[in-house]
């Protein structure tokens, strides 16, 4: 039963513990994680946007550089054509000089040549053997004739190598001629690719038909068609995601596209998304780790605090329970006291009558002897029993009536040490023959207290009697009496310790109950401790028991220096 209750209480506390934890989690961790995640997502979106914007700006800037390069070279050609006459330019030396000076800082042009109106190559400086070629049938020749200035797409041409040319037409005294130059493919490509966008980044150019003008690093061949080309020409900067596959591994890429103005080429920049957003992801990870770490710390702290709180509550509860028990005990004693004193009084009168009847019978028997021997013996035996049992009843009623609230206590200054020595003296003689030794550990500096010595004597006689009784089976042992000040020095502590049988755990709560006894009928009334309890309470004191079965029992009594006010007034 008790164990059941105990375990029920335990589950109750663990439920309380869990509920506390749950609530604090709900109230602190959930919002923290929620807000943390939300902020994190928001932040990374924002950061990604910024990165993409930066990328776009860079791509746009790069486009301008490429455009500028092309335009600059066209302008150069135009300038040369305007400045020099065909006569000057067809001098090989001169043309070579021009090419060299253009290429002095940066190897811009592969070759340069002059073509007549009929398509014949009039002059040429460059690594290829092209001087006797006729260009009248080539697509660019027609374009130049039509437009005056022209930049071609990449093509193979007579040299059978991918290249693109720029050409201007010049009208000199009715004679038309064309200045044509080939842009160095490698230089152009290095210019195009000269934008730093990480390890996975690649830059290339497509023409308006989606043909590779420069080759991307990872895939594709120059002058072949690029896949996924849309062909729509526009002046904005487009940005999209693209899933590519590298041996079945999906790689997400970010693609930025922008159209050059002249010629209409498409500048494409492709970066692995992973690389581009590496920093964001890193920051992300760091934030999440610290977020979860702090959540973990909060959790641990919560668990610690909660377990501490629950243990405090547990302690409080136990304290309250103890006080309640004490109150109940006091109340129980008060009502039982009244009742039993009343009953004892009522029983006393019949007992007194039985006693007189017994004595009358005894008297009569003496004067008129009974002749029948058996009857005589029986009669005498019965009379004897009546006497014994009436005395036993009297003993009980005497004890019961001690419960009745004493209206007058005699309050005196009592030196407890002296008082206890007297009590030991009184009891010691009897106990010594039983093989029980008394030891007193009395604090010599103990102040005297105000109390009722006759009641106090009754209390200690009871305790010592019980202690002696507890040694009945052993036949020997020790009873230790000690005194000292209470910890907070507001009163005194008296302990009565014995090495007797001890009290069973389940009995501890009952020993102060009236009529609770473990002694044989006729030996114990079960009233001793309950009387002690009510006396000690009345004197403003307290009793505490500790006991271990087989080892002994320790009763700790505390008394204030002064009994409660009302006792002082009425006493």
């Amino acid at each position, binding site marked *: 039963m008790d164990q059941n209750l105990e375990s029920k209480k335990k589950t109750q506390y663990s439920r309380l513990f869990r509920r506390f934890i749950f609530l604090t989690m709900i109230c602190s961790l959930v919002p923290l994680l929620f807000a943390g995640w939300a902020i994190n997502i928001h932040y990374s979106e924002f950061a990604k946007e910024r990165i993409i914007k930066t990328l776009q700006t860079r791509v746009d800037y790069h486009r301008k550089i490429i455009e500028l390069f092309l335009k600059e070279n066209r302008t150069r050609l135009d300038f040369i054509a305007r400045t020099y006459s065909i006569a000057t330019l067809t001098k090989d030396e001169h043309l070579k000089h021009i090419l060299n000076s253009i290429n002095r800082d940066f190897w811009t042009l592969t070759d340069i040549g002059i073509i007549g109106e009929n398509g014949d190559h009039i002059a040429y400086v460059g690594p290829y053997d092209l001087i006797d070629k006729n260009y009248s049938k080539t697509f660019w020749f027609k374009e130049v004739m039509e437009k005056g200035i022209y930049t071609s797409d990449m093509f193979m041409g007579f040299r059978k190598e991918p290249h693109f040319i720029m050409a201007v037409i010049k009208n000199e005294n009715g004679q038309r001629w064309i200045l044509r130059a080939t842009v160095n493919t490698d230089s152009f490509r290095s210019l195009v690719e000269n934008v730093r966008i990480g390890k996975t980044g690649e830059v290339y150019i497509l023409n308006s038909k989606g043909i590779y003008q420069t080759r991307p690093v990872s895939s594709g061949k120059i002058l072949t068609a690029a896949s996924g080309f849309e062909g729509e020409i526009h002046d904005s900067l487009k940005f999209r995601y693209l899933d590519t596959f590298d041996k079945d591994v999906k790689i997400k890429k970010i693609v930025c596209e922008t159209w050059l103005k002249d010629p209409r080429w498409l500048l494409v920049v492709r970066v692995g998304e992973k690389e581009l957003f590496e920093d964001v992801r890193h920051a992300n990870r760091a934030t999440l780790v610290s977020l979860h770490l702090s959540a973990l710390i909060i959790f641990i702290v919560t668990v610690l605090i909660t377990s501490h709180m629950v243990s405090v509550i547990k302690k409080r509860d136990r304290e309250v329970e103890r006080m309640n028990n004490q109150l109940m005990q006091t109340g129980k004693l008060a009502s039982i006291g009244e009742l039993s004193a009343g009953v*004892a*009084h009522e029983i*006393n009168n019949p007992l007194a*009558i039985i*006693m007189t009847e017994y*004595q009358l019978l005894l*008297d009569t028997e003496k004067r008129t002897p009974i002749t029948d021997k058996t009857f005589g013996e029986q009669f005498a035996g019965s009379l004897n029993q009546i006497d014994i049992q009436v005395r036993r009843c*009297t003993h009980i009623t005497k004890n019961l009536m*001690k419960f009745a609230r004493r209206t007058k206590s005699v309050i005196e200054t009592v030196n407890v040490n002296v008082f206890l020595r007297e009590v030991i003296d009184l009891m010691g003689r009897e106990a010594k023959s039983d093989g029980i030794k008394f030891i007193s550990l009395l604090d010599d500096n103990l102040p005297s207290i105000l109390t009722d010595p006759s009641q106090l004597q009754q209390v200690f006689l009871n305790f010592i009697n019980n202690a002696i009784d507890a040694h009945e089976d052993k036949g020997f042992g020790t009873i230790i009496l000690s005194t000292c000040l209470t910890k907070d020095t507001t009163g005194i502590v008296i302990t009565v310790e014995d090495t007797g049988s001890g009290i069973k755990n389940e009995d501890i709560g009952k020993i102060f109950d009236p009529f609770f006894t473990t002694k044989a009928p006729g030996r114990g009334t079960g009233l001793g401790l309950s009387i002690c309890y009510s006396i000690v309470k009345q004197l403003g004191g307290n009793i505490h028991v500790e006991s271990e079965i087989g080892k002994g029992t320790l009763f700790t009594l505390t008394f204030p220096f002064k009994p409660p006010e009302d006792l002082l007034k009425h006493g």
Partner: protein
Amino acid sequence: MIGAKILIVDDEEIFADNMARLLQIRNYKVTAVYNGESAIKALEKDNFDVVVLDLKMPGMNGIATLKEIKNLGLFTETLLLTGHGSVDAAVEAIRLGAYDFLNKPCDIDDLIEKIEGAGRKKDDAWKKDMEEKLKRVIESPSDAFKLFD
């Protein structure tokens, strides 16, 4: 003090009668009454050496009766029969001039011992009183009539 006159006052009639019988057997002259009022009447009518008075009685209780008895100004001594719890009342009774008290139920031998003590005390007091009066008569015989009035 064989033949002392004893008045037993107890509301428990059987107890009072039994007591009376027990004492009569032991050669006392005993009267039993069952309440305080009758006790006072009996004392006014007759002379008693010792009154055995129950403390707890309906109507006039032991203490009240004791006060009345004391008011009569007799030499009669009073023994109180009390329950065990009523130590305070017993102490009060002694203060009021009772000879002693006995816890109920009591041994007849204890009672007789106390009765003897009370009787002796009463006799002593009576004798002393007598001697004093005699002394005064001897000193001034003219006052003798006043004294034995």
